[in-house]
């Protein structure tokens, strides 16, 4: 009889309130296997890993370790079994040295630990000075510390949550070399990612998650990246309800050869971005997140301003605005719904009325420098009524609203500004189906009224539903304009992984 | 606004002090009640300025059980001190001792508002009917220490860490220099002003700077902690200070102390206050008043110099010798005091020049 698998999950389900994060998941992991968990944001990957690492307990189903059922009440249980996890966000104390950090969790004298750290470093290409202070280390080095901390406990299974999201390309290569070396030692690795090339390069098996369910198990090397993308995004995209074509107005937003060098090492640099949005059309930006969407949004909104020399690379209503700040661009008629609501689109500790003031102060809410309280309340009441924002009224704190309701409030506030150009990032993230449909209808109605709209979204279906044209953003570069009427999801999928349409 | 010393009242107070010490104190009845408040700018620790004031005030307890002493230490000069003075009077204290120059304006206002109280004010110059400034003739002692320093110095360089360049401290340094020159005319004196009454870190830095210049005897001029003393002891340089002995901090190299015992002065004035005869007057207390004394002299002082010092002390006590008897030259060599002339108290009290031999210019 063959040895039982190292880890098997049988019918695992986990719900958070009404959200079913994982549904009937089956999964087996064998020793010496690099196993990818592939899925879009929100597909349930992180929840699954938390269940395996004992951070959460499943509602249904059972977990078997080396053939025996186990209950993992907390991470300590998981570690005792031989499961180690490297999180996306590190848990190191910056003011301590490497060996001090490790000694907090791993027993043994400092000197012994330092020796073992050096030994592991040599063996697996994880060289690190045990006495270095963590705050002096680069992000890649910190990740090495996290991995070493797991390895010191000689785990049988190592879980890595989006480990490459924080690494520059050279760091990725180095990490992969380490992981391959670990595999040859017989260790099993669960590798969570949505980066298709990486999975094809490294992993032996992939389990694909979509909307909390397993939708496929395959050997990634046997499939094209496009195929993986389709499986990850889902086949059953509804046939796009293409908006009716109508006469377009003048070009209202134009990017002409926009370059941007990332300021922090994990930002994405943009190069040679060009696009034009006319009054009366919706242009979508598709792409897997982390390919420059945040930077693009900030460059259009003005949160990142360019040097005066490059002011011509962004034009708004015909005027060069590359070096103009947010306030100046808003005065020209730009409105913007950012992807983060709390802390950016809204101030959580302030009332909805005060949050209306954030961008609607030009709508008669300020008179001679004084806040016109009645006008402020009236405006926010209009947003609340007009966009079905479920709240206690204008006095409710923004932080007390659900994500979807707050999104509706912000969307409504920006729409009521009667913008000439509207930039929307992730218009329906976390919004329930009915409200999402409402929001899309509103956007189409604005388009029909002649507003120029640029939508950045990871949801391809949504983009196909509302956009006239699409660009795909990949590694900081834009695809050519793809009219949604004549483009298929497969074409877009190819662009999303950096290939060219056939 | 300097007021010349009133010699008569000065004599009276020193006389009173003398009797108080000499007689077996017959007159203090048990029913005497006296509430005394002592306000000092620094903590009244085991040594230093505030400590000697407190010791002097405590001597008033000899008057009987009716004497109550309230110590208010670490009181910053300024509006807060003014309020605290007011509060002490409101609480029934009638004999107030103010331990810092900076309490002068507030204390004067207080004395004017409350004629029934008596105020003694250290180091000031203003006088009112119930407000007496007092000080000590430290220079009488520092002259003696200068003789000892010159006898022990090998580098012939002396140094002083000074708090503020006010006449009282300048006088002490000048007398020290003159005393040293009486033994060895080639002596040099450097001064570092730290511009603080209490800043042990700066004081130690200053002492180290002096040692680095080759100084081998240091005068800790008006420091309230052994900051300078310990630095000198470690470096093997002789050191002395004012007010109270710090020999414990420099068992080997302690040169001695120019001490102050305020109890005779405080007792005499408290008695006068109780008897209703208190009269405001400036008092500049001396060795003869038994307020200023020299003690804990280092046994290293050669016998011949020690003998000369004893002669000088006897002459000082007898009033036949003043360090400030001409000829004395200023730093630039010009004659400041003509031969045979002795400076009057008013000239000494307002001294704003250094004698020849002090190499550091006076801050302007």
């Amino acid at each position, binding site marked *: 009889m063959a040895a039982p698998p190292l880890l098997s999950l049988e019918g695992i389900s986990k719900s958070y309130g009404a959200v079913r994060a994982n549904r009937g998941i089956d999964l087996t992991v064998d020793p010496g296997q690099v196993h990818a968990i592939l899925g879009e944001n929100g597909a349930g990957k992180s929840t699954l890993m938390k269940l395996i690492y004992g951070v959460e307990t499943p509602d249904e189903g059972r977990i078997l370790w080396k053939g025996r059922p186990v209950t993992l009440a907390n991470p300590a249980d998981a570690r*005792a079994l031989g499961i180690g996890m490297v999180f996306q966000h590190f848990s190191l104390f910056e003011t301590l040295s490497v060996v001090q950090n490790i000694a907090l969790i791993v027993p043994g004298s400092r000197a012994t630990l330092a020796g073992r750290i050096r030994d592991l470093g040599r063996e697996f290409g994880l060289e690190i000075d045990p006495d270095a202070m963590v705050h002096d280390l680069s992000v890649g080095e910190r990740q090495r510390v996290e991995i070493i901390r797991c390895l010191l406990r000689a785990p049988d299974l190592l879980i890595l949550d989006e480990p490459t999201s924080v690494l520059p390309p050279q760091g990725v290569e180095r990490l992969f070399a380490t992981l391959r070396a670990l595999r040859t030692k017989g260790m099993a690795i669960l590798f969570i990612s949505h980066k298709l090339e990486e999975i094809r390069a490294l992993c032996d098996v992939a389990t694909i998650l979509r909307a909390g369910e397993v939708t496929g198990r395959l050997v990634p090397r046997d499939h094209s990246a496009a195929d993986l993308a389709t499986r990850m995004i889902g086949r059953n995209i509804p046939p796009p309800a293409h908006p009716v074509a109508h006469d377009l107005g003048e070009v209202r937003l134009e990017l002409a050869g926009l370059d941007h060098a990332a300021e922090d090492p994990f930002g994405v640099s943009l190069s040679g971005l060009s696009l034009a949005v006319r009054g009366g059309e919706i242009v979508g930006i598709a792409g897997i997140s982390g390919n420059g969407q945040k930077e693009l949004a900030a460059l259009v909104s003005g949160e990142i301003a360019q040097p005066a020399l490059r002011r011509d690379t962004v034009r708004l209503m015909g005027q060069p605005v590359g070096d103009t700040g*947010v306030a100046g661009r808003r005065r020209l008629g730009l409105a913007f719904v950012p992807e983060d609501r709390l802390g*950016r689109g809204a*101030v959580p500790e*302030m009332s909805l009325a005060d949050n209306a003031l954030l961008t609607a102060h030009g709508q008669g809410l300020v008179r001679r420098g004084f806040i016109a309280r009645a006008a402020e309340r009236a405006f926010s009441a209009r947003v609340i009524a007009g966009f079905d924002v479920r709240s206690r009224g204008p006095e409710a704190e923004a932080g007390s609203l659900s994500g979807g309701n707050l999104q509706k409030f912000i969307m409504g506030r920006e729409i009521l500004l009667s913008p000439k150009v509207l930039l929307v990032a992730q218009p329906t993230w976390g919004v329930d189906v009915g409200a999402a449909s409402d929001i899309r209808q509103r956007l189409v109605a604005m388009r029909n009224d002649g507003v120029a709209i640029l939508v950045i979204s990871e949801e391809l279906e949504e983009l196909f539903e509302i956009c006239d044209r699409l660009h795909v953003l990949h590694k900081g570069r834009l695809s050519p304009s793809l009219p949604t009427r004549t483009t298929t999801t497969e074409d877009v999928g190819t662009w999303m992984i950096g290939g060219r349409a056939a | 606004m300097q007021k010349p010393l009133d010699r008569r009242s000065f004599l009276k107070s020193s006389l009173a002090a003398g009797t108080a010490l000499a007689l077996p104190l017959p007159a203090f009845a048990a029913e005497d009640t006296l509430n005394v408040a002592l306000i000092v700018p620094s903590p009244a620790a085991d040594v230093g300025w505030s400590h000697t004031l407190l010791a002097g005030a405590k001597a008033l307890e000899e008057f009987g059980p009716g004497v109550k002493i309230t110590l208010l230490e670490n009181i910053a000069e300024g509006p807060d001190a003014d309020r605290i003075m007011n509060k002490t009077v409101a609480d029934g204290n009638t004999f107030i001792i103010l331990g810092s120059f900076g309490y002068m304006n507030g204390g004067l206002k207080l004395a004017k508002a409350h004629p029934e109280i008596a105020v003694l004010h250290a180091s000031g110059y203003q006088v009112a009917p119930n407000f007496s400034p007092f000080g000590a003739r430290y220079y009488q002692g520092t002259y003696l220490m200068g003789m000892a320093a010159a006898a022990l110095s090998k580098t012939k360089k002396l140094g002083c860490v000074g708090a503020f360049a*006010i006449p009282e401290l300048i006088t002490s340094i000048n007398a020290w220099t003159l005393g040293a020159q009486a033994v060895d005319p080639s002596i040099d004196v450097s001064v570092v002003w730290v511009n603080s009454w209490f800043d042990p870190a700066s004081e130690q830095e200053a002492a180290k700077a002096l040692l680095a210049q080759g100084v081998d005897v240091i005068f800790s001029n008006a420091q309230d902690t052994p900051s300078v003393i310990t630095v000198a002891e470690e470096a093997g340089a002789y050191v002395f200070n004012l007010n109270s002995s710090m020999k414990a901090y420099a068992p080997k190299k302690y040169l001695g102390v120019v001490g102050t015992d305020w109890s005779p002065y405080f007792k005499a004035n408290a008695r006068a206050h109780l008897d209703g005869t208190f009269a405001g007057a400036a008092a500049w207390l001396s060795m003869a008043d038994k307020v200023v004394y020299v003690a804990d002299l280092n046994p290293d002082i050669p016998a011949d110099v020690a003998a000369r010092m004893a002669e000088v002390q006897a002459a000082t006590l007898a009033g036949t010798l003043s360090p400030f008897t001409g000829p004395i030259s200023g730093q630039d060599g010009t004659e400041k005091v003509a031969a045979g002339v002795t400076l009057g108290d008013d000239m000494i009290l307002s001294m704003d020049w250094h004698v020849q031999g002090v190499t550091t210019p006076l801050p302007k």
Partner: protein
Amino acid sequence: MRLALIRRDTAARGAMIAAPAVALVLTILCSLVLFAVLGKPAGTALYALLLEPFLSWYSFSEVLLKMAPLCLIAQGLAIGFRANVFNIGAEGQLVIGAIAASALPVWYPDGTSALMLPAMLLLGGLGGMAWGAIAAGFRTRFNANEILVTLMLALIAAQVLNYLLLGPWKDPAGFNFPQSVLFPDAALLPILLPGTRVNVSLLLALAASGLAWVVMRHRFSGYQLLVGGMAPRAAAYAGFSERRAIWISLLVGGLAAGLAGAAEVAGPLGQLQRSVSTGYGYSAIIVAYLGGLNPLGIVLSSFLVSALFIGGDNAMVSAGLPVAAVWVFQSLLLVFYLGGLAFLRYRLVVMHRPAQSVP
């Protein structure tokens, strides 16, 4: 089983009232032990510390006197703190304000002009602003941390004061003591309450409080500062300038501290001396936070902190408490109060962990 603090959905009204009361009771209990160990009369000490500042007219007037600079400086600082601009060096701005204001009476010691006093206040305010502007310039131009810069500037200000008092501005008749001439009457603030030292700077502080309330509550510019403090990314998203917030914060903080410095030399001091710097600039930070950075709260907290200071002085005189014991008492009260405030937003819960079962 373990204890955990869980954030409340809304601030607890009960805790808001209970926090100061509980803090007071705990402080009294602790200090009873302290006084017993020291052998000091607890009754007299507590009376002097807590009640006398309000019961004796003289003590009460002194509370008002001390409250004025604390309140004024704290109002200026709070505006910056709410915008996340941490001006820690108000003491330096106060000193420079005092110096700038003293220039006139030092140069014209016999001045009688009615314009002298307003000009002094103006100079004091400008001096404080200039000192704050240095920090603002460093922050906006070189991104230098304003906490450090303002703190370092406070040390420099102290040295400037030293230099002037030991050198050019020393009273020529003052026996080399480090202080300026006594100011002429024309350079002194009028007394507000006859028979006390309370001067019109109290009105200045209250007017500034009203102004701060209007700005932070009803002006759009105040709202922009609040957003910048609460959610900097939201301020960037809305296009509120961070540079502007930094400049406003440091200039207003400097203005308030400079005015307070001018009012000290033209008020209870009556001359420029080293004791102009007694730590008001630092105490005002505590006052600002105790008042919840709220203009009306600061009026209250400056009054209470001032009363606490006066009470401490009283206890030293009446109960013979050593100064260290007074500081312990004051610190205990603040620590218990701030600890109690945590329960406004958080509640304590006992967590039970599920039983472990590892095969």
